[in-house]
């Protein structure tokens, strides 16, 4: 093997991993690699305006496409700026590889210019991370990083590469195979446990499927649909699970949890058997944990053993891949249909009960003539028919989207569920647009969130990425204001915020800006925006004091919802 520099090997490994896109920001320490990449037209290089956005964009790219997202940043502040992005991907199990460049190995630990111990800083928020001390290790470490990011429970991996490693020469080959003796995720669910689960299911009368992001990451949506339909089991999704089951399906209960539907939260509360798949009993989903599904037995299927019996005691734990588990469950059902005769009889009355909740307390809002955010989201759904890729920011905009946009297909929602990162949606939508240049990509934002990464307008314009940002502008940090209204006697401390003229901002960047102030303008304006070939901000002045309902107050049980 001939000798190559670390930078050349870097490109070689990217190619061997099939990387066609990376999100990056240059600096002193990246220069050797940056120079190598100028001869790589096959790798799209999207240069952002802030490193946090590079990671969110790689994350959005990964969530929308299912491929590993890649970013490259420089040392010191370049690396530390990625931390929020990495933590966001970690909480939501998104496969990304972040390459940070580092000062020369001889300077590490010397407080050198633009030095930060990024491996130390990101240790608790990466699935794994590496410092490459010798160019001979670079190909193996890079291959391992991609392998770790996308297998098992996916997650972010950071690789820190000192500048002298990128210029050092080696003749080491890029390995074809990865073998890590301490890392062998278990995909195959235990058959005995699956049989026990199916036996329990055949005896249940009020089962609920509670499914999360694991359905999306293991591409198990069609298996879930088949299983749910065969046994006619109602399905509720976590925020991360949206799109994993068709939002317009009769068996769909809507999202559960703090801003879940009445039907979903009541079904959980009254259920006698919860089948949790790829969900982790997060506090926003369960409400008061002692009163979560008080009468139910729990089956929990998850690829990550640490998620099982972490927050809630589980009756039948099953470690494994959601898709394989669902396939096994369908096989067992088809082989032993006779055992489910009673099940099919009794489930009818369960459906009747659920129907009463669905009809009695549907998702709704007061149409009082003012411009309501829920109306805007219903319109976006109507116009896109669930075919768009929707990103959200965090707060009210996120919850209204989760409630009123019906996600039909997996990988059509990009949202920071676990960490709740404001400023995530816009760069994530840029990443998704890079992955799917022909698709309509919309970020549903608030006037607070959009200001957290608004500089990425320049990236969208420079690289001709026609993302649409619908800003639900209420002049408040809306979710904070809502809590202050409900629990702090309307003392709106810090939550009233000033925002610039978003139309002018968009125009200043060379994008298009539009404004909507009344209900009857919504449809036409959205249509025009969606047909526009430019990145577009739609500034929608909504009723400033609208709240998200239903709401389970923090620490309350799911059944104790505040309704409209």
């Amino acid at each position, binding site marked *: 093997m001939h000798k190559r520099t670390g930078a050349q090997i870097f490109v070689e490994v990217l190619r061997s991993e099939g990387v066609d896109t990376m999100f990056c920001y240059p600096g002193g320490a990246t220069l050797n690699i940056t120079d190598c990449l100028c001869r790589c037209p096959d790798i799209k290089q999207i240069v952002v305006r802030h490193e946090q956005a590079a990671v969110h964009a790689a994350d959005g790219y990964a969530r929308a496409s299912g491929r590993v997202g890649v970013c490259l940043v420089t040392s010191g502040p370049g690396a530390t700026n990625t931390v929020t992005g990495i933590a966001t991907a970690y909480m939501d199990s998104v496969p990304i590889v972040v390459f940070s460049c580092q000062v020369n190995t001889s300077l590490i630990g010397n407080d050198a210019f633009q030095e930060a111990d990024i491996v130390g800083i990101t240790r608790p928020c990466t699935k794994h991370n590496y410092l490459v001390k010798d160019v001979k290790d670079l190909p193996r470490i890079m291959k391992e990083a991609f392998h770790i990011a996308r297998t098992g429970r996916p997650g972010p991996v950071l690789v820190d590469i000192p500048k002298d490693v990128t210029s050092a020469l080696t003749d080491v080959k890029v390995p074809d195979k990865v*073998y890590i003796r301490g*890392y062998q995720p278990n995909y195959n669910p235990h058959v005995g446990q699956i049989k026990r689960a199916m036996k329990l299911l055949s005896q249940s009368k009020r089962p609920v499927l509670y499914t999360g992001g694991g359905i999306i990451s293991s591409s198990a949506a069609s298996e879930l649909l088949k299983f749910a339909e065969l046994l006619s089991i109602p399905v509720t999704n976590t925020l991360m699970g949206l799109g994993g089951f068709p939002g317009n399906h009769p068996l769909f209960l809507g999202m559960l949890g703090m801003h879940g539907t009445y039907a979903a939260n009541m079904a959980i509360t009254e259920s006698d058997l919860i089948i949790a798949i790829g969900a982790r009993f997060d506090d926003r989903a369960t409400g008061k944990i002692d009163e979560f599904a008080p009468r139910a037995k729990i089956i929990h299927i998850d690829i990550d053993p640490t998620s099982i019996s972490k927050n809630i005691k589980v009756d039948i734990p099953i470690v494994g891949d959601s898709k394989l588990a669902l396939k096994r469950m369908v096989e067992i059902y088809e082989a032993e249909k006779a055992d489910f005769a009673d099940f099919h009889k009794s489930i009818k009355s369960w459906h009747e009960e659920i129907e009463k909740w669905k009809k009695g307390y549907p998702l709704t809002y007061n149409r009082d003539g003012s411009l309501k955010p829920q109306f805007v989201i219903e319109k976006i759904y109507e116009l896109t028919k669930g075919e768009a890729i929707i990103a959200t920011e965090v707060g009210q905009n996120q919850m209204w989207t989760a409630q009123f946009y019906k996600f039909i297909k997996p990988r059509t929602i990009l949202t920071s569920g676990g960490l709740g990162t404001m400023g995530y949606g816009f760069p994530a939508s840029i990443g998704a647009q890079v992955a799917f240049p022909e698709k309509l990509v919309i970020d549903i934002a608030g006037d607070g969130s959009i200001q957290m990464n608004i500089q990425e307008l320049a990236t969208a314009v420079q690289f001709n990425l026609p993302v649409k940002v619908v800003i639900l502008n209420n002049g408040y940090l809306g979710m904070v204001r809502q809590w202050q209204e409900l629990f702090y006697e309307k003392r709106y401390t810090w939550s009233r915020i000033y925002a610039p003229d978003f139309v002018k901002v968009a125009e200043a960047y060379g994008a298009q800006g539009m404004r909507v102030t009344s209900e009857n303008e919504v449809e036409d304006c959205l249509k025009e925006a969606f047909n526009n070939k430019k990145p577009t901000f739609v500034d929608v002045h909504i009723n400033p004091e609208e709240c998200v309902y239903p709401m389970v107050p923090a620490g309350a049980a799911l059944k104790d919802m505040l309704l409209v």
Partner: protein
Amino acid sequence: MRHIISVLVENEFGVLARVAGLFSARGFNIESLCVAETMDPTLSIMTIVTTGNEFILEQILKQLNKLINVIKVVDFKNVDYVAREMILVKVAAENEKREEILRLTEIFRGNIVDVAPKTYTIMITGDEEKIKAFLNLLKPFGIKDLVRTGPIAIPRGDKIIKIKEGKGEDHG
């Protein structure tokens, strides 16, 4: 409840920080931690003593297993094992007390590893009970300094702490 856990890890920089970080991030307690290379120089064994209820212990074991650099985790709860600790203790030893301390040390099969005009430094190994008993006997003489390794443990009989063989598969 007190638990002894053995963790077989890659002998690499940063692994100790990962394990320690795992405990500190979750507020789990490390009572003692002992780490050194194994017969295979690419591996190290950590013996960790921790406290917590069953629920916490289960999370600790699972979280340790989840670390990429961790190859095997052994919880000694249901394993018959031998655990030993070494201490170095500096005790005031003057006049007729010197003879008495010497005798005690012999009874406990310890060694005097350093002698000074007014002190002895004693090395002793043993299980928790033996060390406790020895220290209790030394206390009246005046313990000046004490350093302990924390226990290390190994299964009894033919059982060994070994790597589970598996094949690397690319699931991409």
